[in-house]
């Protein structure tokens, strides 16, 4: 067997996937963004994500329009950004590493601390990252009018998955 030298330390992707799913008895709202930019630096144990809110695709055009115009205000706050640090061992050989990510999420002009468990699957020539966490729209100053309060969940699960390639 050949010894495989140390894998890349810097990883990047431009088509990471972030989706969220607001579920209430009144209405289910799903959206996915397949154009998430993300980078991991394993030597410094840092991670960053950035995305354009307009790239979230909804099943219903009207929901997408309301998301951009009324809630996220993507013309004023076009991006969502996350930067954080990775805690836990990530080896240099292929394998699945469970880690903790702590950092700051900025969207709609508000920055909040966010922590999430994550799974880093190091393979030959690629790194697959998966994570999930919850956000509360109210934490980000996203106001939901009482008329539609029952249609939008107070806490919304967010799923992240990204396939990184060496930088």
């Amino acid at each position, binding site marked *: 067997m050949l010894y495989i030298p140390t894998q890349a330390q810097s990883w990047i992707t431009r088509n990471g996937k972030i989706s969220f799913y607001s579920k209430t008895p009144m209405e289910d709202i799903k959206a996915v963004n397949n154009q998430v930019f993300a980078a991991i630096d394993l030597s410094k144990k840092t991670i960053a994500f950035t995305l354009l809110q307009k790239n979230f695709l909804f099943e219903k055009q009207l929901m997408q329009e309301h998301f951009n115009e009324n809630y996220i205000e993507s013309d004023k706050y076009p*991006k969502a950004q996350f930067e954080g640090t990775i805690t836990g061992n990530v080896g240099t050989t292929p394998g699945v590493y469970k880690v903790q990510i702590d950092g700051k999420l900025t969207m709609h002009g508000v920055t909040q601390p966010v922590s999430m468990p994550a799974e880093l699957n190091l393979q030959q020539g690629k790194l697959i990252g998966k994570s999930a966490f919850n956000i509360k729209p109210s934490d980000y100053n996203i106001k939901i009018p009482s008329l539609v309060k029952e249609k939008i969940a107070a806490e919304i699960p967010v799923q992240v998955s990204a396939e990184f390639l060496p930088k």
Partner: protein
Amino acid sequence: MAQDNSLLQSLDDSLSVQQKHEVVTGTFKATQLVNLPTVESPGKQSLQFMIMHRFGKLNGGAYELFGLDNASIRFGFDYGITDRLAVGLGRSSGDKTFDGSLKYKLLRQTTHQIPVSVSLYGLVTNYTQRYPDKPYLDARYRTAYTTQVIIARKFTRNLSLEVVPAWMHFNLVPTARDKSDVFAVSAGGRMKFTKRMSITAEYNYLLPDQVVTASVKSSMSLGIDIETGGHVFQLVFTNASGMVGPYYLAKTTGTWGKGDIFFGFNVTRAFNFKK
């Protein structure tokens, strides 16, 4: 900490490049200002149901309860075949008029390259009101065509304006002196004053010396839009009693100055058939 920033910074820079070609969305809330169509159309596989309602003239006085005793109505369905192409069907009580329409989004404004959105709107109207004294009125004579080119720009997140040249063709006009091809130019816009409320206004200028046997006026309409989820409510004031193509553009007889003002509302509801 500095390293963290550079990681995010490099990502951000490449994301900003992508951002330059973004399509501008939400130029208008609704598919029309008051009567005048906007560049917007229902999304793919979305159906929009619209009720347009106009009471009588305000100058009817207390006897007519300032117009509330009378009402005319139009029901309309608009369906998005694709995100760019929509079809519509409607029926107005005035003249018992049916209408069919097509709207196509030809050009979409982008953040840095294309300055305006352009939609084409074609409308066919056919009135079915019986006129026993005019037995010659067959289906062809009762039909008119309206074509509008809608040129719009979203200037800021709150302000959008549009200019709309219109060409109407009437298969039958009252006398030989009346033109069967009639031209008008409309201008209008919306100004949001909260996230979910806006003021809309439109002015429809009928070019002179086209309709000569009737005293027709240009129409002006004002509205307040209130958006609540899948509904848009619109309260309107207008001197046009008609609500589609040739009626508000070329058959408006009242003027604001004399109090020939119709109060009314437009209500739209969106339904979705995707998935």
